[in-house]
């Protein structure tokens, strides 16, 4: 995985696993562990996603707990926050488009709204 944080490009060798899938609670937890392939840093994250029904729509609540060491930890917390929000927004937008395209093919179900 390659991440660009402002002036710094980071390559991570990473593994992820589904720690929890709870269909009843509509919740999933993904744990990710990464190590910089060039550099002394590491990163780990726990991503907890929760689906909440809101009438016709579904709200996805994502909570991420990230621990970072090495250069990205020192270079601008602000940048890291901005970049991860940007990545998530991007993801939501693409997912939304993907679902919309699929629904357009399948029928007339309403498109989810991304946040």
């Amino acid at each position, binding site marked *: 995985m390659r991440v660009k944080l402002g002036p710094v490009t980071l390559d991570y060798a990473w593994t992820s696993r589904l720690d929890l899938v709870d269909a009843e609670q509509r919740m999933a937890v993904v744990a990710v562990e990464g190590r910089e392939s060039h550099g002394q840093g590491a990163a780990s994250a726990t991503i907890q996603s929760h689906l909440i029904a809101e009438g016709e729509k579904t709200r996805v609540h994502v909570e991420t707990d990230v621990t970072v060491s090495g250069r990205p930890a*020192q*270079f601008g917390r602000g940048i890291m926050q901005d970049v991860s929000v940007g990545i998530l927004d991007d993801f939501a937008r693409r997912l939304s488009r993907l679902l919309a395209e699929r629904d357009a093919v399948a029928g007339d179900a309403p498109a989810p709204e991304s946040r």
Partner: protein
Amino acid sequence: MKSTLAGEPRAEMTAQPVDEAPWPLLTSGVGLIGASVLRKEDALLLSGSRSFADDLHPARLVHAVVVRSPVAHARIRSIDVGEALAQPGVVGIFTSADLPPELPPIPMRMFSQPGMERFLQRPLASDTVRYSGDPVAVVVAETRYLAEDAAELVAIDYEELEPIVTADRALEPSCSVLHPLAGTNLAGRFVVEYGDVVAAFAAADLVVEARLNVQRHAAVPLETRGVVAEVDERTGLLTVTGAAKIPHVNRSILSRLLDWPERDIRFVELGVGGGFGARGEFYPEDYLVPFCSLRLGRPVSWIEDREEHLRSCNHSREQIHEIGLALTADGRFLGLRNRLLNDAGGYVRTHGLVVPGMTAALLPGAYRWPAYRCDVHHVVTTKTPAGTYRAPGRFEANFVRERMIDMAARRLGMDPVELRRRNLVSSDEMPYATGTHADGHPVVYDTGDYELLLDKGLEHVDWHELRRWRAEDAGPRRRRGLGVAMFVEKSGIGQWEYARVELTRSGRARVYSGGASVGQGVDTVLAQICGESLGVRYQDVDVFHGDTASVPEGMGAFGSRVTVLGGSAVLTAATTLRERLLETAAAQLGAMPGELELVGSRVVRRSGSGEGIGLSRLIELAQEAEPPNRVPTGDGLPVISEEAHFRSDDMTFPYGVHYAAVELDIETGQVDVHRYCVAYDVGRAVNPVLVEGQIVGGVAQGIGGALLEELAYDDSGQPVAASFMDYLLPTAAEVPRVEVLVTEDAPTFRNPLGAKGAGEGGTAAVGAAIANAVSDALGVEVTRLPLSPSHVVALATTGTGG
């Protein structure tokens, strides 16, 4: 302070009380002392021709990069250097396994306690890393780029342990122990006390108590550290360039660590882009670079980058105070008691207990306290090790004490200036034994008229006008406040200094000083003192320091000591030289020495009558009378020379007052410093403009500590301000014009110049004065620094520090 590392020098002059002082105060014959002459250093600096450590590129040079721990606290499971070592251009990689097994840790050179050696740092971590930045390996390659690339491939497997981010947590019984062999996170503990504190608090009409914090910040010199080491295979001479602050002391430490004879090690100081206490201490890299050079048989250079600097050069200032002040209803101080937690970071470094020791010794400040107790805890945490930074321990102490006095004044409904005035030590009590001590030495204020300086400063800033300004309506979001902070500084630690003064046939003088330059104008000041004592122009004096090959011994530049001790040594040597010269000439000319003077390259009669005698002839005569000097001279040409050591076991105590007027915005939290004035008595200013420069620069650094700078850590022990994106230094936008009032009302009797050190008073009370002014503006008590925008907004909206 102990000077055992550099050996005990001969003492030729010792400080004594004023009526027994063996010297008359030097009078300004040539008019050089007290003259604001231009700096001798500046021509080279301004033309860009001064060399710094990174300018040095000897043939066959290789470059070192240090691999550092990315985590706060971990056990090292394994280190694999295989892939890194296979990279092109890599000439060597060293880990702790490559260092000699008997290698001792980096020693303390000051204020140590038995047991503290268990907390010292080895040049490379072996099984445990204790802060983000702890050196684990060093990679050496043909270029810096190749070394950086290879360093990224050193594979280290860490098993993370509990990060210990606060001193409070470190002392909890459930906290893990950072140095298991020590069995505790309390690296040092001592109590400074006198009088009956319990009785004083029992008898008080008012007791003010608070928990006050000073944040971790650092010196951050413009030039980062740099070391270039080179060994001459033929002679075995190891040359270490990039030395600063204490070249002779560090040579001694290196000799011990490398087990390499001291006479075969040469330390060379080049230009130094700021020191402020941090640069020039002995760090892991000061061992590693010479070690690599010896192992590889090639010159090795290591130049610290800024990110490394912020994670590995000494941090400073982080203290927690639980303090109480007892006083009477009419504002008489009865007692001060304090529990101090000093955050040492991951290891104890060279300064030992100096920083909290200075806090405990000087916390009483300019006031009379019938009873005092300071219980000091020096605590290790998983952060970068801490050491001294300009006004070490005093920036903190002054913030704490002066804040408490303002809190007490508010509670009593009394003017803070008046409350201070009622408790000042008066001039007729001098010399004044405070009852405290620093590293075993009793703190005895030598001279001073604190109230006089307070009043001079109030008049200088026009305090009445400032009070009128404060009362004006500044607008709905704006608040104005005034703050005063008084303090007693200390200067001239390190007990002794060496100087040699030579006079050449042409009438040019050379000064060889054991002091060092960190950019403060040493060459100029020592040339002025030499010129004055010898009777030559300061332009005709060349000053040498920082090279152990030409200066046999010395203590260096720290604790505002170079003018006080180094200058006094130059004065002693130059005065003796002049006397010898005039006596020799007098014998030749059939005159009395007092009738003669040195003019250019000749000694002539003051009256202008009769024959003179040339320096060439006098030097011949002097050399006939005495075998040539022990120390070889620079160019081998004959000179007449004298050496001296100046010794003083007692520090001198300059004192000052800071006056701050601030206007702040309660919505943005921005603090604008409207006026800032420093009144400082230095006993005697050898060069008033340089003193002023020291104070202005000092205030700028103090503003950083008061408003901006914070080496913050997150819960996992990661430093979150390891670049200038997040570590905010003051710029021209934040630093006000500093109004300086230098006075010379209280020359010291502890040296023949009457001078007290001027290096630290500009920084010492900025945190205190700004915090008092912000508290005044908001009507809320500031209890911690820095006063960042979010902090100020929190104070304005909730009345607490957030």
